[in-house]
Structure formats: structure tokens, C-alpha cells
């Protein structure tokens, strides 16, 4: 079976998304640990790391959009379903946690990263569920 242009473009989009994501993650580590371990709170370097992180983040968003636009219609449906579930769980989970914390029913100090992890894990589970559903 010959690989056609559409598949090549899809693989290219996936590789670009992976590269932008890895770059963004590395820049996230740089801005998180750099001021403490690398340049001792230098403002210029911290600002530079922030600009780099922001730029790579924007690149990752555009790359993700390109990847979704290049996917076929079933893959798009699975992605949109997973995004809808992940967004819903993130909003409901985040607001429920906030309400419980304000009413002092729970006393766990949650960081924004927990919400990001919740959304990411929900998204992954929803993608796998979608793959199994249309298998």
C-alpha cells in the first residue's frame, strides 16, 4: 500500500506537534527551575525564559490546531469528544474543589498543576475510550 500525501502531511503535523510540545515542556522546566538553580533570580534571564516559554506555547497551540485540522473526520470527532469531556471535568472538578475548600470541607492545598494533570489524564482516557469505541 502506497503512503499518500494526506498521510505524509498527517505524520508531519504529528512530528511538529511533538517537537513544539517537547520545546514548550523544556522551556517550562527552564522558567520553573532556572531562576533558582541556574541564574540566581536574574530578572533579564527570567523575562527571557518567560518570553521563550510563551512563544513556544503559542507555537504548540498553532501546531495542535494544524494537527487536528489535518486529521480525518473520525479522528476529529474522537478528539472533540475527548476535549469536551476533559474541559467539562476540569471546570466541574476545579469549581467543586474551590467550593469545598471555601466551605472548609477539605484542607488540601491544591496547585494549578493538579488541575492540568486532571484535564490531561481525563483527555487521555477519553481518547483511549474513543479509540476502543470505534475500533
Amino acid at each position, binding site marked *: *500500500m*502506497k503512503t*499518500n500525501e*494526506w*498521510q505524509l502531511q498527517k505524520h508531519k503535523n504529528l512530528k511538529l506537534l511533538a517537537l513544539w510540545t517537547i520545546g514548550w515542556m523544556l522551556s517550562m522546566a527552564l522558567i520553573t527551575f532556572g531562576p533558582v538553580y541556574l541564574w540566581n533570580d536574574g530578572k533579564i534571564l527570567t523575562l527571557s525564559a518567560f518570553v521563550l516559554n510563551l512563544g513556544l506555547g503559542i507555537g504548540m497551540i498553532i501546531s495542535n490546531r494544524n494537527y487536528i485540522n489535518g486529521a*480525518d*473526520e*473520525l*479522528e476529529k*470527532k474522537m478528539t472533540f469528544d475527548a476535549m469536551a469531556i476533559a474541559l467539562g471535568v476540569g471546570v466541574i472538578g476545579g469549581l467543586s474543589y474551590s467550593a469545598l475548600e471555601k466551605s472548609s470541607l477539605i484542607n488540601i492545598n491544591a496547585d494549578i498543576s493538579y488541575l492540568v494533570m486532571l484535564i490531561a489524564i481525563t483527555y487521555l482516557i477519553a481518547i483511549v475510550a474513543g*479509540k476502543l*469505541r*470505534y*475500533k
Partner: protein
Amino acid sequence: MKNRVKVLRAEHNLTQADLANAVEVSRQTINAIEKGKFDPSLILAFKLSEYFSKSIEEIFEYGK
């Protein structure tokens, strides 16, 4: 929505991957359409119609 994609594919002696490649979708999409789990877009329906040289009504049957 019922369809005759599997029958037509067999008549043309094609694998799911061959047909998927021809109409520029994934093999999983063809499989899901054949099993009735996924209804294709109008564009994909036209592509299949053109590929098999059949009208859309000859391939797909709308039913509740």
C-alpha cells in the same frame, strides 16, 4: 444509517486500508462506517460515491 460500503469494497477486491487510502481517511474510519458506528460527512460520502461510481443513495440508506 445503513450502508453498502463493505459489500462494494469486497466487489472491488479492496482491503479497508486500500479504500481508506483512496478516499484519504484512516482505516479505522472505514471500519467504523462499515460497522455502522460512524456516519461519514457529506464530503466523504461523495468521495466514496465517486470512487465506486455509484450514487450516494446506492451506497447509503437513511433510516432511523
